[in-house]
C-alpha cells in the first residue's frame, strides 16, 4: 500500500491518493468504502460493479466475521484469499471486524482475552489469534486491528479498559501477523477526549501503516464528534492514511475532516 497527501485545505482536511497492490488505479482520497455482506456489495452482483464510478468504488470493506459460518479459513486460503473467492481481482479490500448490521460489538461480553460480537451465528468471542488466522486466509489489502469498542454510556473505568485492551491486542496482532496486508492500528476511547488521545499516542508508537478510528456510532452525540476527531487527528502523523467507520449518513461524513477513508 502506498499513500500520499496531495493538498491541504486551510483547516485540517486534505486530499491524497491510495495505491493498493491489487487495484490497478490509484484511489483518490477522501474515499468512501463500499460496505459488503460476505464480501459483495449488497444486491450488486460483480458483473454490475464496473457500472459504478471507477476507481472510486474499488475499495470494499468487509467483516471477516461474516465468514464464521463458512467457508473455512483453510478453504478461503486454498482459493487464494478473498479477492479470488469473490472474483474481484481489481478491487481493494479493507477488513474491519465490526460492521453496522451483522457483526456488532457486544462490549459486556468482551473480556481480556478477546472482543465479543453479535453475529449471524450468535455471540462469538474473537481473540487476536483467531482474528489474525482469518486475516491471513483472506489476505485483505488493509486490515484494522482488533478493537474493544464500547458505547458512549459505559463507565470511565470500562472506557479506559477498552483503550488498554485495544492497544494490547494491536501488539498481539502485529506479533502474530504473517500477511503482506497493511495494518491499521485501531484507535478507541469513546467520548473521552483524554482517553482518545492516550489511545492515539500509544498506537502511533507502533509499527502500523495507517490508523483506524473506531468507537463511533455507539451513542455519542453528533456535537461531540468534531472535538473527539480533532483530539485524535492532532496526534496522528500527517503522512499516514486514516480510516473511520460507523458514522452513518453521508451528511455526517463531512464532519470528519482530516480522515481519508470513510
Amino acid at each position, binding site marked *: 500500500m502506498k499513500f500520499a497527501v496531495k493538498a491541504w485545505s486551510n483547516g485540517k482536511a486534505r486530499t491524497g491518493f491510495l495505491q493498493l497492490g491489487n487495484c490497478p488505479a490509484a484511489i483518490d482520497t477522501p474515499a468512501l468504502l463500499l460496505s459488503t*455482506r*460476505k464480501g459483495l456489495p449488497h*444486491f450488486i*452482483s460483480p*458483473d*454490475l460493479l464496473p457500472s459504478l464510478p471507477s476507481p472510486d468504488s474499488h475499495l470494499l470493506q468487509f467483516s471477516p466475521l461474516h465468514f464464521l*459460518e463458512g*467457508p473455512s479459513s*483453510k478453504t478461503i486460503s486454498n482459493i487464494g484469499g478473498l479477492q479470488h473467492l*469473490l472474483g474481484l481481482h481489481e478491487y481493494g479490500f479493507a477488513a474491519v471486524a465490526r460492521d453496522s448490521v451483522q457483526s456488532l460489538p457486544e462490549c459486556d461480553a468482551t473480556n481480556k482475552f478477546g472482543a465479543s460480537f453479535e453475529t449471524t451465528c450468535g455471540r462469538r468471542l474473537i481473540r487476536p489469534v483467531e482474528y489474525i488466522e482469518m486475516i491471513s486466509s483472506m489476505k485483505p489489502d488493509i486490515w484494522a486491528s482488533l478493537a474493544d469498542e464500547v458505547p458512549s454510556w459505559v463507565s470511565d473505568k470500562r472506557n479506559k479498559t477498552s483503550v488498554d485492551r485495544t492497544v494490547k491486542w494491536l501488539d498481539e496482532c502485529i506479533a502474530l501477523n504473517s500477511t503482506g496486508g497493511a495494518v491499521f492500528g485501531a484507535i478507541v476511547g469513546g467520548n473521552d477526549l483524554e482517553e482518545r488521545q492516550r489511545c492515539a499516542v500509544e498506537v502511533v508508537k507502533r509499527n502500523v501503516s495507517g490508523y483506524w478510528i473506531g468507537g463511533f456510532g455507539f451513542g455519542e452525540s453528533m456535537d461531540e464528534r468534531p472535538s473527539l476527531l480533532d483530539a485524535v487527528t492532532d496526534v496522528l502523523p500527517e503522512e499516514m492514511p486514516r480510516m473511520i467507520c460507523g458514522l452513518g449518513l453521508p451528511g455526517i461524513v463531512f464532519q470528519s475532516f482530516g480522515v481519508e477513508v470513510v
Partner: protein
Amino acid sequence: MALRFEILGRFNRARAAQLTLPHFTCQTPLFMPVGTQGTIKGLTTQQLEEIGCQIILGNTYHLALRPTSELIDELGGLHKFMNWPRAMLTDSGGFQMVSLLHLADITEKGVTFQSPVDGKPMLLTPEESIQIQNRIGADIIMALDDVVKTTITGPRIEEAMYRTLRWIDRCIAAHKRPHEQNLFGIVQGGLDPVLRDICVRGLVDRNLPGYAIGGLAGGEDKDSFWRVVAQCTASLPEDKPRYVMGVGYPLDIVVCSALGADMYDCVYPTRTARFGTALIPEGVLKLKHQAMADDTRPIDPTCDCMVCRNYSRAYIHCLVTKDAMGSQLLSFHNLYYMMKLSRDLHSSIVRGQFPEFVRKFLLRMFPHGDVPQWVCNAMEVAGIDISSCCAPMSSPLTSEICEVGFTKLSEIE
C-alpha cells in the same frame, strides 16, 4: 398478425426457426423466463440481455393489480416501464386466478374471483383480459382459456375445452392491436386425444399467429405429457410458432423440441435457485448440501457464465438461502444455463446435428444409461435414435447416484 416465423432447419419433427416479433427477432427453440411483476428477481434487464434472453413473460394478473395496466399504458407500455427492449409475452391472467385464488369460479361470462385488494367479487372476461393485455403492450398476448387441473377427468374437461373455443372468438373480437400484438390461442382438452384434436382444429380454423399447448405441467404422468405435446405439434400448422406453457425442466424442453415445439416458459430455474439448487448438465446441484462447504470447484466447470467463472461452490454454499446474493447468483447461472440450452437446441438443428446433441445431453444427465422410459418412448416418435444412451435393461446398478449432492432431474419432479 405481427410476427414472421421462418424455419431455418429441421430434424424430423424438430425445427429451428427465426421468429420476428415487433420488439425482437428471436431464435427458436427458446425459453422465456417469468418476470412476474415486470422484473426477474435478482437480475437487471441489462444482465438478461447479456445472457441472451429473448422474450420475458409478464403475469397479467399481477401487473393488473399493481401497478395496473392503465398506469403501464400511461407510462408507454411494459417495455418502457421495465426498460426491456426485447420481446415480451403476457399471459391471460386466468391461470393465476385459478391457481392462486381458491375462490375463483368459472362461468360462461368469465372467471369470477375475490379481489385480493378489497375482497370484492371481480369478473375477468375474455374481453377484459385482452383489453388489459392491449394496454400492457407485449409482443405476444394469450387468449383467456378455461383452465382445469390436468389430473381432473370427466365432463369438466370437455366443458372447458369447448368454452375455450367459444372464448377465443370473444378474444379475437376484443383484440384492438392485431398489427402490433400477436394473439395466441391455447389448446385445451386434458389428456383426451379426441378433445385435444377438436380443440386444435377449432383454433387452427381461426388462423391465429401462434398456438400454445395448455393444461400441461400440472402433475400428469410424463408419458401422458409428451403424448399430448406430440399429438398437438403433429396437427398444428408448420408455419406458426408452438408454445408449450409452463414447461421448464431442461429434459422436458429437449423432448418437446424433438417433438416440434418452439417456445417454453417456467418459473423453475429461478424458483429452484431461491432454494439453493443449480441446474447443471448432470441434473441439479444442491448448493445447500454440506459437501459443498469446502468444494473449491465452480458450480459447473463447463459453464462460461459470470458466476461459474468467478465463484466456488464453497462461496455459493455460504450464501444460499441466507443472503439475497445467493439466489441472485444462482438465478443468473440457472437462466444462463436455460439460454445456453435454447441456443444449443437451435444451432444443433440448424447444423443438422440434432440427434448428436440429444444423445450427448442424455449421456451427461444419465451416465449410467438409465434414461427414463417416457423419454425413450418420446424419442422413438421423434425419430431420434438414442439406443446408445440406454443401458441394457438387466443392469441393476444404473439408477444409483454416484456423487454427493447430485440428484437426477427426474427424481425431483
